[in-house]
């Protein structure tokens, strides 16, 4: 199976940016983060002691509609928890995340938006990391589909989503905590539990943290799960950015 590809800091004007491409679903998402930034319209924020996280999803070939607003709400609630909005320089400011779907199919009206959710989450996370926004943790997300015969399929394509009995988007923090759980369709708790286990395996691999929170590092295992993929992408970027230093030593 072909894994996703990602790159960091590919735009000039935005504070941080990332692009993420998932070959199985075909989505190609470009994300930009501006933070901390003055929000002229949010002077009197509801929570003045925190930064306001704003998410904007721009579909590739249509105008943003109800579906985009819905997915923006989910992204805002997840990322709002992860961003440390009380760090110095962040209160009363904004963390503006712009996500443009630059490649792949559109999510048609009436189709499920959960298929694109992991791509959007990963792009935002990488863009936030690229903008050096303080985060409490990293995370990985996946969407699993359950067919009528209770078979779990990973990285559901929009076409596969139509045939699936239920869809589940789950995100796990780097420490294995469940951050997001959005489900659609008919399913019972046993199915959900099986989905959760499978999703945890996809996001974290076998490296389930021990009681003291330490994660066993294994180079080989890193490449097979999403958390390792995020880690590797950032490592590669840091390596290329500090190349001058490595060479001079």
């Amino acid at each position, binding site marked *: 199976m072909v894994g996703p590809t990602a790159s960091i800091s590919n*735009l*000039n*004007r*935005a*504070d941080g*940016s990332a692009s993420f491409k998932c070959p199985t679903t075909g989505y*190609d998402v*470009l994300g*930009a983060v*501006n933070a901390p*930034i003055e929000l002229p*319209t949010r002077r009197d924020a509801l929570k003045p002691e925190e930064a306001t996280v*704003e998410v*904007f999803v*721009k579909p*590739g*070939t*249509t*105008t*943003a509609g109800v579906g985009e607003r819905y997915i923006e709400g989910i992204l805002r609630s997840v990322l709002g928890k992860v961003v440390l909005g009380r760090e110095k320089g962040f209160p009363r400011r904004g963390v*503006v995340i*712009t996500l*443009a779907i*630059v*490649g792949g199919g*559109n999510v048609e009206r009436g189709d499920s938006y959960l298929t694109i959710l992991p791509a959007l989450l990963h792009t935002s996370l990488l863009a936030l990391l690229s903008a050096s926004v303080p985060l409490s943790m990293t995370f990985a997300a996946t969407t699993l589909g359950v067919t009528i015969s209770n078979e779990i399929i990973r990285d559901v394509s929009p076409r596969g989503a139509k045939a699936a009995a239920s869809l589940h988007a789950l995100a796990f923090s780097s420490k294995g905590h469940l951050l997001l759980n959005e489900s659609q369709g008919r399913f019972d708790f046993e199915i959900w539990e099986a989905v959760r286990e499978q999703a945890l395996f996809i996001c974290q691999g076998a490296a389930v943290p021990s009681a003291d929170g330490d994660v066993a590092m294994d180079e080989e295992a890193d490449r097979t799960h999403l958390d390792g993929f995020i880690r590797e992408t950032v490592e590669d970027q840091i390596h290329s950015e500090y190349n001058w230093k490595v060479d001079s030593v």
Partner: protein
Amino acid sequence: MRPVGKAKWPKKVDFAPLTGAGFASITMSKEHPLSNPERDFILDALRQNVRLDGREVDQFRPLNIAFGDEYGHVKLQLGKTNIVVRISAEVTKPHEDRPFDGLFNINLELSAMGSPAFENGRSSDLEANSTHILDSVIRHSNALDTESLCIIQGVSCWSIRADVHVLDYDGNLTDAACIAIMTALQHFRRPDAVVKEGQVIVYGVEDRVPVALNITHKPLSVTFQTFNDGTHIILDASRREELASEGELVIGINNAGDMCFLSKFSGAPVDALAIVNKTTVALERVKEINALVDKALKADLAQRSKQGMADESRAENDR
């Protein structure tokens, strides 16, 4: 770009002469304004016919055109201005008053991705201005033959939509978007549709060879910025130069030299002869760019057909 105090486009305002650093507070969007020394530096350098990046007065920044996987997906870089254009097609009902015409829309939305000065979901002057120019140059000049998009008169037609995503904004958005849209329109292939017994059948890309759009001519916009009371006119200004400029002059022209758009919205008056001269410059540039676009399109087409052949032979082997 357009140093008109509070006036909103398209309201015409009387030009008030601006002198020296007196218009330091004027900005077109909320881009960070230039400092006075920076502005003076740009203007002084122009008096000596020198530009910030060492270009000639009538020279474009390096243009790079790449294509995405699907048809009508163009990635364009003009200097540091970075744009993605995607074309999409769907079958809809034509307008009541124009039953023979298909629909064609250009959608340009500036998001905070292009520049921190752009606010998400809020339209700005720059956006309205660019959209107006693009509409005039491409849409109203009928560059895309909308009549060829008709499927059944008054019942169904193709609706073509061009979406412009601004990834990096570094000046001259309009020209970059214009080149990208024209390239994308030439690159795009719509699914074949056939009318059988009053029913429209749209064939998938796998079933029938998709059809190219009918392009009648290839107009492009060429934007000049004026400085020092209209004495210095430069082509393809970068963001910094735009911030220091007094006014813009936009010329929409095609390969044959047919002018489809000319605008001098605001700013210091420009000598009529200068405009005539710049029109000649614009024609030269348009020819050059169109040649470049054709070359890029040909290269991409050749690669695609090669890939298509490879795919076909692979399918044969599978059997």
